């Protein structure tokens, strides 16, 4: 039973993987922007190298182009003047504008010149290109103004230096993130499974400590410390019931025995009945506190039939004195996992309940089995339909004036059954009377 009534699934927030992935993507983007800014800044402070890059880019366009004459090239955007032509070094021609081609034999080399002209700048230069498997030289001259002609160059630089390295790196990081998060959170998931398996009735259970990561380790240890404190609270509660029992029961004994010494009178009888009622109430409240704190060892095997015979033997004199007949029957295998004294009290409270409700001269049938279950059946008026939802409520009584109990007996039975991982059902048995059945965990196979 889910006592707290809360579902296992909490509010579905973003997973840690998603959070890390989002942050990683954000950082990658920020880094890319920073990188772009650095590229733009660097080149804007170095117009010479920009000019070089511009001509190299145009030359590579010419090399890739199928146009036969370089004049057909469009040139950089925003060019006010653009000229390009091929030079045949074999012609031995030494162009007049080639001031830097002073090498002997007329060997051409790449060069770039940038000069200021009114209303802008002029860039001229030569690049070696491969066309049709043949090395040729391309002369280019260009006039322009402002940053616009450089845009393709800068864009190219960004692709080369920012996008190409960053995109695969980001993808690799995301992929790594999947594995890393899964691996790192493994101990956390195991801890979650262990916390789910925690049973409030099973003390001394702790989460197993994973040595790493340290964060999970500290969390697990904090949870374990909290569990230790809970255990201590339970121990204090148990200690309290023992102490309260002693403190209440000894004065009650003195009261009862003192009353017995009084000369017989109606007042004495009333007081005796009152103290007996009080003793019963104290006993039941302590039983309930003990039932609430009961920890059932999961591996103790008991025989429901043996316990049933014991309790029927113990209660038969009381039943006979009240003109009732108590019968016991064991059917089949009656072994179960449980706490013998707790099961004894389950029987006792159910028989007490039957004694209180069944009329005289009717049998009360106590049965163990078949299997890990017990039942107590009486031949009284049964349980009214409107009472059925209430009979296990603590302090509930059908008729407060008539009953001398505290209304805790069946609540104790239910709590004891739950502590065993079992359940109690109440119904009207076929024919007449009430039937209470309690089921327990069966012994493990092979035992």
């Amino acid at each position: 039973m889910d006592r707290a009534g809360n579902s296992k699934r909490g509010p579905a927030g973003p997973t840690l993987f998603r959070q890390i992935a989002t942050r990683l993507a954000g950082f990658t983007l920020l880094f890319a922007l920073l990188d772009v800014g650095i590229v733009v800044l660097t080149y804007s402070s170095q117009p010479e190298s920009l000019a070089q890059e511009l001509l190299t880019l145009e030359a590579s366009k010419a090399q890739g182009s199928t146009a036969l004459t370089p004049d057909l090239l469009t040139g950089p955007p925003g060019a006010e003047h653009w000229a390009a032509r091929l030079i045949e070094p074999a012609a031995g021609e030494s162009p007049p504008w080639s001031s830097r081609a002073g090498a002997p034999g007329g060997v051409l080399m790449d060069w770039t010149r940038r000069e200021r002209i009114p209303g802008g700048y002029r860039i001229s230069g030569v690049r070696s290109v491969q066309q049709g498997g043949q090395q040729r030289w391309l002369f280019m001259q260009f006039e322009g103004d402002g940053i616009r002609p450089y845009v393709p160059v800068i864009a190219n630089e960004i692709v080369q230096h920012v996008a190409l390295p960053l995109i695969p790196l980001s993808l690799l990081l995301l992929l790594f993130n999947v594995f890393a998060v899964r691996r790192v959170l493994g101990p956390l998931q195991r801890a979650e499974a262990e916390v789910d398996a925690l049973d409030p009735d099973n003390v001394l259970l702790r989460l197993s400590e994973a040595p790493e990561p340290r964060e999970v380790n500290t969390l697990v240890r904090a949870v374990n410390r909290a569990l230790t404190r809970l255990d201590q609270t339970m121990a204090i509660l148990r200690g309290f019931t023992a102490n309260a029992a002693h403190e209440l029961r000894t004065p009650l004994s003195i009261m009862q025995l003192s009353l017995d010494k009084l000369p017989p009178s109606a007042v004495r009888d009333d007081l005796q009945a009152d103290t007996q009622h009080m003793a019963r109430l104290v006993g039941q409240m302590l039983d309930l506190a003990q039932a609430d704190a009961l920890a059932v060892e999961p591996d103790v095997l008991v025989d429901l039939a043996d316990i049933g015979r014991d309790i029927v033997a113990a209660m038969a004199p009381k039943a006979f004195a009240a003109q009732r007949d108590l019968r016991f029957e064991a059917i089949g295998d009656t072994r179960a996992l449980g706490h013998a004294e707790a099961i004894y009290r389950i029987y006792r409270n159910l028989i007490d309940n039957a004694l209180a409700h069944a009329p005289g001269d009717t049998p009360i049938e106590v049965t163990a089995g078949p299997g890990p279950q017990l039942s107590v059946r009486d031949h009284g008026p049964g349980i009214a339909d409107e009472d059925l939802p209430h009979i296990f409520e603590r302090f509930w009584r059908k008729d407060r004036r008539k009953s001398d109990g505290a209304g805790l007996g069946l609540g104790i039975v239910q709590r004891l059954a739950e502590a065993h991982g079992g359940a109690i059902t109440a119904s009207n048995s076929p024919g007449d009377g009430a039937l209470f059945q309690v089921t327990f965990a069966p012994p493990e196979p092979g035992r």
Partner: protein
Amino acid sequence: MRLLLVEDNARLASLIREGLDRQGFALDWCETVAGAEHALAINAYDLMLLDLGLPDGEGLDLVRGLRRRQDTMPILVLTARGGLDDRVLGLDAGADDYLVKPFQIPELAARCRALLRRPGASLGTELCAGNVTLHSAERSVKVAGEPVVATPREVNLLECLLRRTGHVVAKPALEGALYSMDADVTPNALEACVSRLRKRLTAAGADVQIRTVHGVGYALFAPLGAHG
């Protein structure tokens, strides 16, 4: 018959003493474990009534010490501790019975009598309930002073029930006492024996009752108001 009461609450002790005195028991009282050990060293007691939480120690330690010394004196634990494991702990330590406070004197007296009747305890050879008397050495039964003829097996059965008057004696225990191991016991043999004993006692005018607890065993009840 001498009883030792170990109880640290003086008022409760004096009430128990008076109550049991009226029931015909002689009672010595001490308040502590040390006092109890001293009393046990000086006198021989037939039964000890023992409270558990004592000022100078744990009552159960006293029980364990006695049992270690092979002392078989019956011990009835009187305690306020009614926890789920307390009774088992007490019996495991070697106590013979366990009575949770508050209790009433007739109940306490009945438990004392049951313990004193147990084999091993020093007790008289006469077992009585109501007007029925069984002489355990002579194997004779009398109802209201008149001898009643019964088979040895029926006398054995009556003795078992008388030793536990007011309590249910389980069938296996009765069968073990009545039939030897190799004897072929039919399921109805015990039932028939009980039935014959019942008829004999009724015919002789006995005021005790032998009741069947179906599925468990049999119990002999003395008439209400009589003890013994």
